[in-house]
Structures are given as structure tokens and as C-alpha cells.
């Protein structure tokens, strides 16, 4: 924590960045995002096991961009998000400094270029916990009908509050599909069909892009395990295309890359 505060102070005092986006103490022992703009205010920065939010979500917000160049406290999932956003032309080189950290502490690695982020990410592991593996396995063993009723039950609680969308750093579209009303592809009310369409559509839009940070599940006020759906797609994309999102600055997109030499054996 001390190392992080020192680094933030140095960057702000030297004018290298105008804002440090990091974690501060929130209510009920939770961490929340803080935007430190003065070297004297760096004491507000904290770093511990509660620091899980994907702060990259703020990179594309115009009000944050207006603050100037940012240093972003970046846990491993955030680093991958930065790379994925770069691959989608949403962050440009030199527009930010990533301060690579782990929630458990340790050293702070400042990464000033996207290439540096890519190199750093290549050296990281992204292990899954035993509980996560068990959840995926249990889901994989369900039959189609069982899966359908599982999700129908889960989605029946969806309020269409779009907290998942607000929390997701890859949901940066200025006009979401649900806001397209000429024609209205996804119905607005929170009824069963509309809920199913919304959640399936969001999952499909994230297929091959999601970096598995888990903010969707944490944001959901009614506890729908949205990350399970996205994680399952992460695995699916890896199995089919040997592709992982957020690993390269100039990464391709698994779901939208046309190749003339594609064997296309699924339509033969």
C-alpha cells in the first residue's frame, strides 16, 4: 500500500499524470473507486483483498477522460481489460499509465506503454479457484432442458436495472442494443422473454471479448450468476479457437474474424 501511495505521489507531483484512479475505503469494509488528483491526497489509496472492482470501466467515461492523463491501479484482470480495449481501438498508447499490482500487495510495476502491458500480462497466471471449476463442471453436466430452466429461473429475477452493463468495462457502447428502438429488437419491460433476450444478447456480445473479471456478478443486485454464463463462453471460445481475449494489443476478435482459409467444416 505504501509503495502504491509513493508511486502515485511521484506521478502526480511530477505532472506525469493528472489523476490516479485507484481503490479507496468505502462503506461496510468494501473498497470503492477513488480519483486522486492531488499529490497530497494519495493517502486515500488503499490496496487489499477487497480491491476487486475492474477500474478500467472508467477509462472510456468522458467525465474521467476530461480529467487528463490517468494512472490506473491495475489488478491482473484490469491489465487484460486494457489490452482488450486497445484491441478494440478504445484506448490509445500513451493515454494512461497502468500501475500493475495484486490485491495481496507486493511491488507496484508502472507500465507506461501498451506493449509493456502486453509483456507484463504474458508473464502472469490467471488461475481459477476450485469453487469456480466446480461450478462450471456442475453446469456442464446439466442437460439442455435443465440449463434452460436454470437460467429461466435466474433471469426471472432480473430487474433490467442494467447494473451489469454499467459495471462491465467492455460495455462501452454509446448506444446499447436495448436502446435501439427503430426497430425495438429487445423489449423494454422486465418480463421473462425480454429478460432472456437481454441477458443472452449481452453474453453473446461479450463472447470472445470478456476477460472474466467478474464485475457483472458482483454488480447484480439480485445475485444472478452472470459470470458463470460469460465464463462458460470464455471456455467455449478457447476450445474452438484457442483464443483468449485481452492478451495482445493488436489481438484479433475470435467471433468476428473472416479468414479465406477457414475450413468451414461446420457447413459441409
Amino acid at each position, binding site marked *: 500500500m505504501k509503495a502504491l501511495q509513493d508511486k502515485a505521489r511521484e506521478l502526480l507531483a511530477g505532472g506525469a499524470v493528472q489523476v490516479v484512479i485507484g481503490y479507496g475505503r468505502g462503506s461496510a469494509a468494501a473498497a470503492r473507486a477513488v480519483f486522486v488528483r492531488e499529490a497530497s491526497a494519495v493517502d486515500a489509496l488503499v490496496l487489499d483483498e477487497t480491491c476487486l472492482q475492474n477500474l478500467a470501466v472508467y477509462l472510456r467515461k468522458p467525465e474521467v477522460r476530461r480529467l487528463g492523463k490517468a494512472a490506473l491501479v491495475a489488478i491482473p484482470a484490469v491489465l487484460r481489460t486494457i489490452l482488450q480495449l486497445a484491441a478494440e*481501438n478504445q484506448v490509445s498508447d500513451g493515454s494512461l499509465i497502468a500501475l500493475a499490482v495484486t490485491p495481496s500487495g507486493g511491488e507496484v510495476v508502472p507500465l507506461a506503454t501498451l506493449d509493456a502491458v502486453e509483456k507484463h500480462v504474458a508473464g502472469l497466471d490467471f488461475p481459477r479457484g476450485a469453487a469456480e471449476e466446480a461450478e462450471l463442471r456442475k453446469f456442464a453436466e446439466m442437460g439442455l432442458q435443465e440449463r434452460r430452466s436454470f437460467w429461466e429461473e435466474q433471469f426471472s429475477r432480473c430487474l433490467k436495472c442494467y447494473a451489469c452493463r454499467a459495471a462491465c468495462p467492455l460495455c462501452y457502447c454509446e448506444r446499447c442494443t436495448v436502446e435501439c428502438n427503430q426497430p425495438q429488437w429487445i423489449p423494454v419491460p422486465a418480463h421473462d422473454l425480454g429478460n432472456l433476450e437481454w441477458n443472452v444478447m449481452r453474453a453473446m456480445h461479450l463472447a470472445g471479448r470478456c476477460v472474466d473479471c467478474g464485475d457483472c456478478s458482483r454488480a447484480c443486485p439480485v445475485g444472478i450468476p452472470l459470470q458463470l454464463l460469460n465464463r462458460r463462453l470464455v471456455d467455449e471460445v478457447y476450445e474452438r479457437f484457442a483464443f483468449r481475449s485481452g492478451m495482445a494489443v493488436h489481438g484479433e476478435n475470435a467471433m468476428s474474424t473472416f479468414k479465406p482459409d477457414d475450413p468451414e467444416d461446420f457447413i459441409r
Partner: protein
Amino acid sequence: MTLARIGVFVCHCGENISATVDCAKVAAEAAKLPGVAHSVDYKYMCSDPGQQLIQSAIREKGLTGVVVAACSPRMHEPTFRRACAEAGLNPFLCEMANIREHCSWVHEKGEATTAKALDIVRTLVAKVKKGKPLQPIQVPVTKTALVLGGGIAGIQASLDIANAGHRVILVEKEPSIGGHMAQLSETFPTLDCSQCILTPRMVEVAQHPNITLYSYSELEGLEGFIGNFKARIRRKARGLDETLCTGCGLCTQKCPTRRIPSEFDAGLGLRPAIYVPFPQAVPNKPVIDRDHCTYFLKGKCRLCEKVCPTQAIRFDQEDEIVEAEVGAVVLATGFDIKHGDFFPEYGYGRFQDVIDGLQFERLASASGPTLGEIRRPSDGKVPETVVFVACAGSRDPAKGIEYCSKICCMYTAKHAMLYKHKVHQGKPFVFYMDIRAGGKMYEEFVRRAMEEDGVQYVRGRVSRIYERGGKLVVKGADTLLGARPLEIEADLVVLATAAVANAGAEDLAQKLHVSYDAHAFFAEAHPKLRPVETNTAGIFLAGACQAPKDIPDSVSQASGAAAKVAALFSRSELVREPLVAVVDRQAPPVYSSCVGCFLCQGACPYQAIEKEEIRNRDGGLIKTVAKVNPGLCQGCGTCVALCRTKSIDIQGYSHEQVYAEVLALLNRGEGDA
């Protein structure tokens, strides 16, 4: 916006539709659909009175849209759109409801069939109500053609295009044009000398004011679209200044490295390290083979430089990249034949006297290594018995080549004949599966080989070839005589090995975004009706790069491709249907709902999506968004399906139109009809 006034015109198509669909009922029910102002049926809507029916309704009833319920839009959409345009309605406000292929032809007569026809009409009425008037797209055309490959197909295409008054850039990867035809001795079915008919054409190419010839060059890359391609051509370093070289040949005579197998003689002859492939080469300028030249290998020699009377040798010459703007491309890259260890059972590549068809051509050719005498490679002896094996590799699923190589039956008959003409006492045998001699004077030619020249035809396949006492033992079976096993002791065996695509064909196809088949032959747009076009607009096919072909077929196809190019070049602007994708643009401060993720860019099979920077009046960047190049877009809709913000739409098939069609089906009976 005015209220929709849609006209519905139901066609009987003689009895094609009316036999199973109650057309009068469809018209009567369609009249009740909201927005339909006029609805009639008629026996032949595409006929002149039928079209007049539509035109007068447009004029008299002020129709805002037309639905013609008839055949497939592929059949008559242009007809009806033209008729509507003549009557003053934007042609893209005319839609076809396909109640023939999609309904009457595939269903029994009955109420359900009539109901389905009405449903189809219903969806198209809903679609045309959401339609917008569209204007055709105009694209400029660069009237220069790029021809890839200088074999007979490329030569013919180049000459035809050039004679039509357009400029041609002909690119040939070898040091000389001429291709395989230059290697041949005589040609079937007339037995006229191949070089004698080809070389005048080669000279014509070199001298034609409209043709720029880049020999010893390869295509590096091609960008752009029909009428507007940009080609990058690599001119490989010949090692000499072509403007100074007079082609005197002194360097090739003095070169000390002389024992390199000649590609032109199919490995049967030898050539020096600085060489002209054959005496009639066009251009008649040598090339330094850097893999064999003593100077490039050991750093000294430079004998050619010393003897050159015009000081044309340039050892330090490097490859040069030439860029050219072209409007059309003709692919005429030709074919190869199967070589090497593909036939272990025949000992090809192991026994010197088992040769392939092209090697026999060189043996029989007056310009070949034996000056036209048939002498076998191993000891130069004139062979007394020659066995020709047809279908070596072709028509053999076990070898992975299911297709017929098409030319082998004919050239094998020719080979046997030429052998007999040169070695009167010789005994030629031909092993064959079937004789395929479809073509003008072809069957007669094969008959002549059998009946007049006494070539022994054995119907059966050869299982093995091995050496015994200086002879090649050919083991086969005569299937016309009860599969009787047969052994022939031969002095020379000629394999008619399968014709295959060139080694680089697949790479080239990918470079040009042209589709190709499982054997890497380039794919035509339609096997019957569009045989010289590819699926990529502006790229045409000629010759054996599409499939094995003989000379007459290659030449015909080349002229066909040239005609297509000339038609394309006949106008200075190209008119295209505006059914292309368009990225959303709107008033500030939004400018566009596109967020510029450019995932659509990688998905587009036609490279039609570009980046556009929207700037304010001071030149400051506001945002970078996608833009579709209407010249390149084929309207496939892949980008539309991918775009998360639904910022891309296809004109003529917009989200609103498709959605309206679906809703018209789902909500039928609810308030409308």
C-alpha cells in the same frame, strides 16, 4: 411523409403459379392489407401488357410502392424494377414476392398453399412500406487490365484486351512468356507444331503498344475493388540492365557453370547459370540463376560481365517493386503436373526411363535435348517398345485426385503417334481406363492412332513397374480380355501424370480473395453461366488455373475473359446496385452511434470497411468511426449482424424492413387482413 399506397400485382406465370395457388384470392386478400391501394392478378405479369398494368397503376393511383408476387427476384426483379422506374417510381421501391419457387412449385394445390402465398405477399408489403428510395452507386473504372500468367491463356487474353484498345500489364513469373505450350512438340488433333503457332503470338505481345510485359515478375499484393485495384508487382532481379542487353547470348555461351538441369527441358537438358530458357524466348534477355552462379556462391568469376559487349550485367541489381493501378484482373496462372514420389509403384523418379508427359514432349520436340529424336534418357538408345500409362494419378480417389485431368487421353494418343512416326518399327502400348475424346476431331484423332498408326490400346491399369535385365517390366491387366494379367517389357515408360494446380495457387487465391476448390483450382462464379468470372467482382479466369484444360479451351476461355474485361472497360463509370452497408451518421453531438471498435473490419470478407475520422471545423479529432466503401461492399450483411450498437444497416434490407417482415408474419390476423 405520405401514407403508403402500395400496389400488389399477382402473376399466374401461365400455370406455374395458378395451378396450385388461387391467384385471384391472393389478390383479393392482399387488397385488404393496410396500406394496399391496388391489387390485381394477371396471367403473365412480365409480359408487355402485364408491365403496362403496373405502370398505369403507378401513374393513375400514385403508388408509393409495388409488390410483384411472381417468380424469384433473380429471374425478373430487374424487369419489374425497370418498368417501375419508367413509370416514375424509384426502382428500389419495387419488391418481388417469390410465390413460385418458394410456394407454387414446392407445394400441392390447396388452401394452405394459397395462404402461404398470401403470407409471402404480406411480408413484402410490410417490407416495401419501410423501403426508401435509393440511388445507384457510380464507381470510376481504370481502363488497364492486369493479366497474371503468360502462358497461352494469358497471351490470348492480353492480346484480345489490347486489341480492344485497352492497356494491359502482363505479369509472368518465369524469365519468358510461353508457358507449357512453348514446351510442347506438336499439338492435337492437327499435329501442327506448337512453337510455330505460339511464338508469333509471343512476339505480338512483346511488340504490342498497349501491352506492358513484366517477365520474371510476380504479384506481391492486390488491394482495392472492381475498376479500382492497386497492384504491387515484384520484378525479380535478372542481374542485368534490360535496356542495354541486346540478347546476343555471348554470356550464356561463356558461362562456366553449365550442368544445371533445364526447367524448360523438364530436366532432360542442361543449361548454364546465366541463361535464356529457350532460343525463342520473349523477352530474349538472360537471367542470372543466383542459386547456381559461381559469383553468387563463391564471390568470384564475373566472366559474363567481362564478355558482355554492352556492359549490361548488374550483379548488385535488387528486386524492384512496381505499383500499378488496374481496373480488372485476369488470372491465367496455369497448372503443373504431378511429379516425384507420388507414384512409388511406377518407379517414377527412381528409374530414369520412366518419364512424364512433358518430358516426352521435350524428347519429341525439334528444339529439345535430342533434337526431336526419341531417345531414352538413361543411355540414349532409341526405345523399341514404349508403354504409355494414362490416368497416372488422375481419377484415383486413393491418390486423392478424383477428377479427370482431361488432356491426357489426347496427348497420350499424340505421343504414341509421334513415336510411331519417328520410330516406324517401334511398338507403342497405351494402358487406359476409358478414352475421353470429346472435342472437334478428337475421336477421329484417337481412332487414327489405333487404326492407322497401330498403337496397341490395352484397357486396364498398371499395377507395378520394375526393372529386369535392362528392361522395364510393366505389369498390368487387360480388362477387356477377362482381366487377363499382362506383362510388357518396355524400354521407355511415359506416365500421363495428373494435371494439378500450381504450387502457389492457394496463396495467390488468398491474396486476391478468390475462392478455390479442394484441389486449389480457382473457382468460377457459376459452373455453367459465369465460367470466366470469379466471385470477386473484376477478377476473371482463363485457362488451366480453373481446371485442367487443353489449348482450344484455354484460348476460348481467355477470349471470354477478355470480352468481359472489354465490356467492363466500355464505360468510364461503373453502375452498381446500392444494396450496400452504410454506417450510421447523425447530427452533432453524436455524429455516429458507431463506437469505433472496428470488429466489423476483421469480419468483412471484402475489406470494404475503412476508418473515418470525424473532425471539427478546426481540424480537431472528434471520433474515429467505421465507413463502408460502397465500391467494395457486396452487401453480405456480416458486419450488420456483428455490430453491437446496430450502427450498420444494409440499404434495401434494413433492420426496419427485416423486422417489419418478421412482425407481419407473427402478427398476421391481428387487425390486418
